């Protein structure tokens, strides 16, 4: 919650262990930092998470951030069904819910929020690597919220993946852009 209400986003990103939700969150965080915004990233952690559902929370604000732990986020990115079930109800009225429909085959019930859907798996498959689905989602999220420029997110991603193969990097960039395009018009 921001008194100014300007650029404030509290986002929970949630999915299976292997879906790269931590990377989505960290990339977002890094990008926010380069845009000189205040930002915090916090993971859920612990061995009980093993194989189960993992999530992280990113808070972006123009002012110093109070709570990095958020019970009522402005946005939720749900990468699988358990995440949808767990977090849909928390979203602030008027907030955003982004669904990865390649895994989630059911519909949210809330009507007072904006719901976006991206088939990240399919798009990633077309790009040629299932693993970039998380970047598709991230691209979509940037498109929806406009809180960060795609350039700084792309730059952040390049930082995060520094040392990886150039092809992989290039695929991730394409995934980001494809994600952004995918939600256009939704």
């Amino acid at each position, binding site marked *: 919650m921001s008194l100014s209400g300007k650029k404030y986003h509290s986002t929970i990103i949630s999915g299976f262990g292997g879906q790269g939700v931590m990377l989505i969150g960290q990339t977002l965080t890094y990008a926010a*930092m380069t845009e000189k915004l205040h*930002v915090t990233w916090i993971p859920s952690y612990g061995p009980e998470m093993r194989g189960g559902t993992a999530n992280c929370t990113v808070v972006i604000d123009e002012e110093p951030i*109070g709570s*990095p*732990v958020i019970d*009522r986020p402005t946005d939720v990115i749900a990468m699988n069904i358990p995440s949808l079930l767990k977090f849909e109800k928390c979203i602030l009225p008027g907030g955003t819910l982004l669904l990865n429909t390649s895994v989630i085959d059911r519909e949210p019930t809330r009507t007072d929020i904006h719901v976006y859907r991206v088939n990240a798996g399919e798009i990633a498959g077309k790009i040629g690597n299932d693993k970039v689905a998380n970047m598709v989602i991230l691209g979509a999220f940037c498109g929806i919220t406009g809180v960060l420029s795609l350039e700084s997110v792309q730059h952040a991603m390049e930082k995060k993946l520094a040392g990886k193969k150039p092809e992989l990097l290039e695929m991730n960039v394409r995934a980001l852009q494809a994600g952004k395009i995918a939600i256009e018009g939704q």
Partner: protein
Amino acid sequence: MADKTLLKGTEAMAEAALRAGCQVYFGYPITPQSELIEYMAKRMPEIGRTFLQAESEVAAVNMIYGAACTGTRVMTSTSSPGFSLMMEGVSYIAGAVLPAVFINVVRGGPGLGDIQPAQSDYFQGTKGGGHGDYRLIVLSPATIQEAVNMMFDAFDLADRYLNPVLIIADGLLGQMMEPVELPDFLMPDRMPNHDSWALRGKGTRKKHSVTSFDLDPLKLEEMNLANFEKYRKIQQKEVRYEEYLMDDAEVAFVAYGTMGRILKTTIRMAREAGIKAGMIRPITLWPFPEKPIQEAAKKVKMVMSVEMSMGQMVEDVRLAVSGKVPTPFYGRTGGVVPTPTEVFEALKREWEAIV
């Protein structure tokens, strides 16, 4: 803003400790602190510092004792059960008047508990979980930047007063990432000089001895009184706290560490709802900011403590307030982190009860 990097709290504290001149580190893995020891394992050899994983927390605290005897900047980090195992050693280090820095990344207790963020080791840290009359200097950061800066303060306090310093953090601060500015490495000439007492081989001088005992109780009492004289000075000079929106406050929250940070959101909610809330956030848990709370108690209608525990710091708050105004408490335990909203609800209930 200057050049910032993005680091986990544990890693940021580790890097800051190295920049603050920490030469030697001993520790034992435990969640949610392990990233700190892992960072040290990787980074210290790179810059010519000394890292050793001890066989247990009991061994670790005694390695700290040994290193501190040589006047070397030394630290360890652990989490709750591990810190309990260090209690004998901590008491020895305090009794032997030695400088050392401890970090307890507190997790839910008691017992094995869980690995979620908690503040239920406040008593242990501030009142003396070990035996005997002694005090630790106890600091608690609310943000990673504060934690980073605090590492420098911690080593300085330890060296200035020859006393162990404890930083109480929690898993939230430890696992969180936020942009942080790292101070430069401390120059060697800013480093403490402990030549007058440290054990480094006597060479041509008279021998030095470091101990925490005297079988003659009158002499042991003298040692303790000297320590408590020092503590009195620390209480006078080294109290640190943050006041947040206290100027016009009618309710003063008291909360530390992560909880103090979370409360800022609650306070904004409260003010939007017309309750003029403010906060005194102790940064030194010992010495406790008794005076500012006493002063606040003269102006506000209520001093409300919020902790991630069943209520520990609240006793120090009540000692400070000494019956002047109501001192309600709100807390969660076992690793549950209160949300801004639930604290706001609790505030409303308490507020309605008195207005």
